[in-house]
């Protein structure tokens, strides 16, 4: 499999994208380069990567065939490639589009997986460095009073990896019409009688609506339970963080990624492979066709909500009829930056996700049972004392 490697034009050392300065920085000679400079320099190489699109297509065809015949498709299908720096043979998951060599640490982009129809339209580059992501995690832990002693400790980070996750973003322009019934209720009193007047109206609304940035994850469900088998090939290739996440229950992974939203999509830039250098990236596994119904349903829901918003002043609004006509729909395959941390605590590996743009952190935290029980008892005691004092005053 062909790979892309970004090297410092000055000294030839591996180059990684620097989130803090939004440029490329060489750790060896200290040179920095703008994204534009690197993109121009590697424009030719990136173009040749598309030749290998066939590799990706064949794997997609294999998946489609398996699904059609009801056969199994190995979600954990491994692909090998040669590290362009040290020549070692490295295995990656079928969906991996960028990673680093386990042996020499060289950042490598598997460009062919992000070319042709799999080429993302845009990417939100990492804005948070690894250190700042750790700080965000520590800050979140600092606010939690019931964490076990010694939990928030930088030395216990098992693995930390910046990952670009594939998402579909959809914009739609439509004309929507709704017919609803609503009620206006008026009360007044005359003599010893209270009157209630209910007027019923039929409400007609039509509007030109534009809904932007409706998003949906483009990674497929991975079946099975998380495995922590230390003998697996992938762990041997130091993909522990992603291996754990790859095999994580769909619900858990989806929840983790969902909970680090929102991303500021106005900061998205046109896709360039160079942004992936130094990070791991997942290519999309879900096409438009698979989620178009879900997206259409959500668009309808949002459009109805907007139309209902114009029916203020009415009570008990009930939609009787709704129709819409789509004028324009634009899909953007976008890569979103997320730091994935695996944290080892008392022999258990816990995954956390940090928004690579805003620092929003999510993950299940352990609870110090003793500390929480003590505070629960203190709260109970306080409530008891207040209740007794109240009883003495009012009974």
């Amino acid at each position, binding site marked *: 499999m062909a790979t892309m490697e970004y090297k410092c034009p000055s000294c030839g050392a591996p180059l990684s994208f620097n989130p803090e300065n939004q440029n490329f920085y060489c750790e060896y000679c200290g040179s920095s380069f703008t994204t534009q400079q690197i993109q121009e320099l590697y424009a030719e190489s990136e173009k040749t990567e598309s030749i290998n699109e066939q590799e990706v297509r064949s794997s997609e065809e294999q998946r489609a065939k398996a699904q059609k015949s009801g056969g199994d498709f190995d979600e954990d299908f491994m692909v090998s490639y040669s590290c362009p720096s040290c020549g070692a043979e490295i295995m990656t998951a079928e969906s991996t589009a960028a990673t680093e060599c386990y042996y020499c640490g060289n950042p490598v982009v598997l460009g062919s997986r992000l070319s042709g129809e799999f080429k993302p339209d845009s990417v939100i580059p990492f804005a948070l460095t690894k250190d700042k992501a750790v700080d965000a995690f520590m800050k979140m832990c600092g606010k*939690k009073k*019931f964490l076990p002693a010694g939990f928030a400790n930088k030395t216990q980070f098992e693995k930390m990896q910046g990952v670009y996750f594939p998402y579909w973003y959809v914009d739609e322009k439509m004309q929507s*019409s709704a017919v609803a*019934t609503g009620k206006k209720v008026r009360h007044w*009193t005359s003599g*010893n*009688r*209270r*009157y*209630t*007047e*209910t*007027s*019923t*109206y*039929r*409400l*007609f*609304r*039509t*509007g*030109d*609506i*534009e*809904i*932007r*940035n*409706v*998003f949906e994850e483009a990674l497929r469900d991975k079946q099975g339970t998380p495995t922590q088998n230390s003998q697996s090939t992938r762990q041997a290739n130091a993909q522990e963080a992603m291996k754990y996440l790859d095999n994580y229950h769909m619900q858990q992974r989806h*929840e983790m990624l*969902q*909970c*680090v*939203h*929102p991303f500021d999509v106005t900061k998205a830039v046109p896709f360039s492979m160079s942004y992936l250098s130094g990070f791991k990236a997942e290519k999309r596994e879900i096409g438009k066709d698979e989620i178009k119904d879900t997206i259409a349903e959500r668009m309808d829901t*949002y459009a109805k*909500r*907007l*139309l209902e918003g*114009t029916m203020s002043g009415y009570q008990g609004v009930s939609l009787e009829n709704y129709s819409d006509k789509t004028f324009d729909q634009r899909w953007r395959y976008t890569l979103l930056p997320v730091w994935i941390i695996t944290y080892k605590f008392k022999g258990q590996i816990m995954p956390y996700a940090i928004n690579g743009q805003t620092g*929003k*952190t*999510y*993950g*299940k*935290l352990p*609870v110090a049972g003793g500390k*929480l029980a003590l*505070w*629960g008892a203190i*709260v*109970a*005691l306080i*409530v*008891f004392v207040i*209740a*007794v004092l109240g*009883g*003495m005053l009012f*009974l």
Partner: protein
Amino acid sequence: MIKTRISVKISAAALVLLLLFSSAATAFAATDYNSYYLISDEADLFAGSSFDGLSEKLETVGKHTGWQIAVVTTNDNVGSSQMDSYYNRVYDNNRSYFESDCVMFVIDNASGNRIILTHGDAEAYFTDQRMSDMKSALKPYLSSGDMLNASYEFADKTQEFYNEGIPSDGTHNNHVEGTETADDKLKRENKLLYVLKKWGWLMGLIAIAAGGIFAGVNVGRYKFNGKSGTYDLDKNSTMKVLDSRDQFLHKSTTSTVISSGSSSSGGGGGSSSHGSSGSF
């Protein structure tokens, strides 16, 4: 439908109020009374022969003072802490029997509690000190169960207080003494212990529930650490309204009768004030 529902609610509320007040109103019936005296012997403490003499005595004092002198015996079994409010309510609810200026000697034979209540002009004469004097004077008769002579003594002391006039420095704090239940006594002597003994179990349960909720909420917050990023429709949408029409279909009007709601306490005699009382 609405009308019916509200009417049912009003009826239910009226029934509750009626039951509440009837407990203090239904049982009372004066055996003998006029504007200077009243005897109601529900507990049957006075023999027929002694009854006339007592009536005469009370009427004499009543004419002398200008107050209605009342002796009321009951079997209501009212706790000592409730005597004051309970028999003031009896007074309020039976103003057709009672005068505005009135001194009542109530003997609850079932609970063994006694109380003296004053109303109107008499209030000012019955200071705390005089109430204590009255109690001391009645004590020998009450302890021997001689309720007739206790009533005579009550009438004499009342006349004595009237003759002495209104004290210039008297206090009129209500004080409750006499036969008490164990709970009432504990409540008076050690309220903390009373509250703990009587309601401690409930407060303990509430406290444990509060502690449990606190722990549960925190476990939940740690387990689901962070809120799901919801889609911000307002920020990500625009709409240009092309057509907005509201077509009137029909109108309906319903009405409900408003109940007067404000139930005035007291009978036909208008407002009344309650003076100092002594329960023993």
